[in-house]
């Protein structure tokens, strides 16, 4: 401490930390006696119109519930940042998690028990039981409310299809057709014909989707008796497919490090012809990446002849922070009901929601799977038919192609670690011409099995 400026800096730091500490103190009730809850709003970077639409919904909710004060907080679920937020206690009171994380977070005591609040909802009995299960503990207590469910689909750029001399109204239905379309796009347009996510655990996620579509599974057994089966025939085929596209056809472009956000960006920018991802990403593509809806196409992921071939599903839960008070839990479930579920069960709410979204030029009618029963889902789609702005003729191939297909969930044990191990396998296949797929899979399999055994 030799200079006065240093001393001043230290005093300033001290004052700042004191300020920060005082700002950290819990604040559950507003000065005016209202119950205050913070809720996850939209992904950071979303366009202003979407935030305006969100704020409009908040205002509507607060008008209907004058005793509740809702504070929106920008939120994006990412494996890496979520852990830090969870440990640091900086998550909003109401936030979203993938279906796969529900059970472990419940077991760790990190979610609030909202059984009584959820059971009081009039549509409680209508929840798709296999989806609701992911939000329940063994005793049947409820810790979350399903928000959305999706299946993996094949997204494609109609404009690149046309430029490559392909018919955008006859999207590929087999992996061989995907391969030849990718080759045509790469040759005619110079862009990547087909690409897959490879980073931040999404490489493993999409490899799992590709595996399931070829009849393979990443795990067998349940509970303490899980056998990891990464080196199955389906995964091998999926990786061989990528290898052919990358090294024989050279139809995957020249950048191979993509995660969920960056591949969306590249697709919206017209740099990728086809890729697989959740069926509901149209909303995000238009909101965050300024996608021109006219170039967007969605079709079902091709599946092989194997009797086990299926499509990978997934989804998100709305959950409440374990630290929430009873009043906050009541308010939180009211908010979730209002913002995310009512529009699926109540015509008036559905129309009001769709109207606001459509007015702000936000996506209405994105392909999704039912979280309640199919009948309710179909009805909810009919109510908002007038407001649907997602070009239905461009995404209809998805629903048509998936008719009668089985949807399977993501691997349950050590999901993120399994995905992480597959990330580097996919990256190796795409960046090393001599990558030994069998050896890579055998090693990843042993590593993940060791993690599963360690518990």
């Amino acid at each position, binding site marked *: *401490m*030799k200079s006065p400026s240093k001393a001043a800096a*230290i*005093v300033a*730091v*001290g004052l700042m930390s004191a300020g920060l500490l005082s700002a950290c103190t819990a604040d559950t009730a507003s000065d005016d006696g209202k119950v205050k809850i913070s809720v996850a709003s939209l992904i950071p970077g979303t366009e202003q119109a979407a935030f305006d639409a969100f704020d409009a919904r908040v205002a509507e909710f607060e008008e209907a519930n004058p005793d509740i004060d809702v504070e929106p907080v920008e939120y994006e*679920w990412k*494996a*890496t*940042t*979520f*852990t*830090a937020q*969870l*440990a*640091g206690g900086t998550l909003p009171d109401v936030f979203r*998690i*993938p279906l796969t*994380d529900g059970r*472990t*977070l419940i077991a*760790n*005591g*990190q979610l609030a028990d909202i059984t009584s609040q959820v059971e009081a909802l009039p549509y409680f009995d209508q929840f798709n039981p296999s989806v609701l299960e992911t939000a329940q503990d063994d005793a049947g207590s409820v810790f979350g409310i399903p928000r959305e469910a999706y299946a993996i689909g094949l997204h494609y750029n109609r404009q690149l299809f046309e430029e490559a001399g392909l018919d955008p109204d006859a999207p590929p239905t087999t992996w061989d057709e995907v391969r030849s379309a990718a080759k045509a796009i790469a040759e005619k347009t110079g862009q990547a014909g087909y690409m897959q996510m*490879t*980073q*931040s*655990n999404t490489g493993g996620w999409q490899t799992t989707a590709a595996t399931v579509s070829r009849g393979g599974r990443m795990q067998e057994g349940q509970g303490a008796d899980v056998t990891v089966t990464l080196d199955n025939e389906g995964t091998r085929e999926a990786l061989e497919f990528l290898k052919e596209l990358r090294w024989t056809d050279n139809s995957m*472009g*020249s*950048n*191979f*490090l993509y*995660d969920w956000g960056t591949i969306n960006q590249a697709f919206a920018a017209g740099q990728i012809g086809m890729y697989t991802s959740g069926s509901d990403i149209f909303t995000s593509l238009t909101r965050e990446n300024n996608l021109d809806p006219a170039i967007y196409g969605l079709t079902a992921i091709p599946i092989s002849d194997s009797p086990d071939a299926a499509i990978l599903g997934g989804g998100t839960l709305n959950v409440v922070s*374990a630290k929430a008070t009873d009043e906050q839990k009541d308010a939180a479930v009211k908010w979730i009901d209002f913002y995310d579920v009512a529009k699926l069960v109540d015509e008036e709410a559905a129309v009001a929601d769709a109207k606001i979204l459509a007015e702000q030029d936000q996506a209405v009618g994105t392909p999704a799977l039912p979280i309640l029963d199919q009948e309710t889902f179909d009805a909810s789609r009919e109510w908002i038919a007038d407001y649907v702005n997602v070009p239905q003729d461009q995404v209809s191939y998805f629903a048509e192609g998936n008719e009668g297909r089985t949807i399977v969930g993501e691997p349950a044990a050590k999901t*993120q*670690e399994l995905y*992480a191990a597959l*990330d*580097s*396998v996919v*990256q*190796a296949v*795409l*960046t*090393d011409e001599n*990558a030994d797929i069998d050896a890579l899979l055998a*090693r990843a399999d042993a*590593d993940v099995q060791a993690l599963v055994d360690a518990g």
Partner: protein
Amino acid sequence: MSTLQRPAAPTRRSPVSWVRRGGLSTLLFMLPLLVIFGVFSWKPIVEAVVMSLQKTNLVSPAAFVGLDNYVRVLSDPQLGQAVLNTVYFALLALLFGYPVPLVVAVLMSEVKRMRGLYSALAYLPVVVPPVVAVLLWKVFYNADPNGPFNTVLSWVGIPPQPWLQSAASAMPSLVLEATWAGAGGTIIIYLAALTAVNPDLYDAAEIDGAGIWKKVRHVTLPQLRPVLLITFILQIIGTAQVFLEPFLFTNGGPANSTTTVLLLIYRYAFQNSLGGNYGAATALSVLLAVFLAGFSLLYFRLTRSWSSE
């Protein structure tokens, strides 16, 4: 303040004389520093050592598990590769990053006109926020034949390079950016040290018929030796803790070819969304800190006689 700390001649020690000689005010002046240093530096270090012996997700209560975390970390098949990658990064960084600033600084000290401009240009990359710099370079490194760097290479007939998209070229690409980003700071240090070299030495060397190379070899380098030793150890410690570049450029890819020790620590803590393995993360951090402390001690002991010459 250093005058306050200096004790008077040690005659008789009593609390009264201690206070009278200014002991109390010394302590009072030191207190904020001690508290801040203790709370923000030492407490986290001690807590990290404790946490490395625990199993915790920072939400449910922590349980002591002895040396389990250390065993887990040391038996992780990825540790070997992470250490090799880090050493590779450090070696490449030494190869590019250590001599380049020195050469630039010596050249700049020879320039008589517009020195300020050159200094500003050399220091500019340090002013650019690191994240911005990395994102910018990520664009430059676009592996497409139309990517900025590949376009420049095509002008001189060199085929497009994969840059970050191949296990072989990813690490050198990271080092190139890191050198660009970090050289400015080191150049300024060398320039300052060069001004301290007595000009008479150069004059004497010139009279003895020394050319520019001999002047550098026999005057500049020996005079800079203490500074060179310090920047060398700082560089080693800095590169052993490299995180920003691999995290932002490649996230450790392709196929773990840029996974460094610090990135591995980060992954232990944050890769799993269900509450990370903070015990293993801190255990590896402690191991790294112990290694670097040991390395520094050894280094200074070995070079003590050399630097005081």
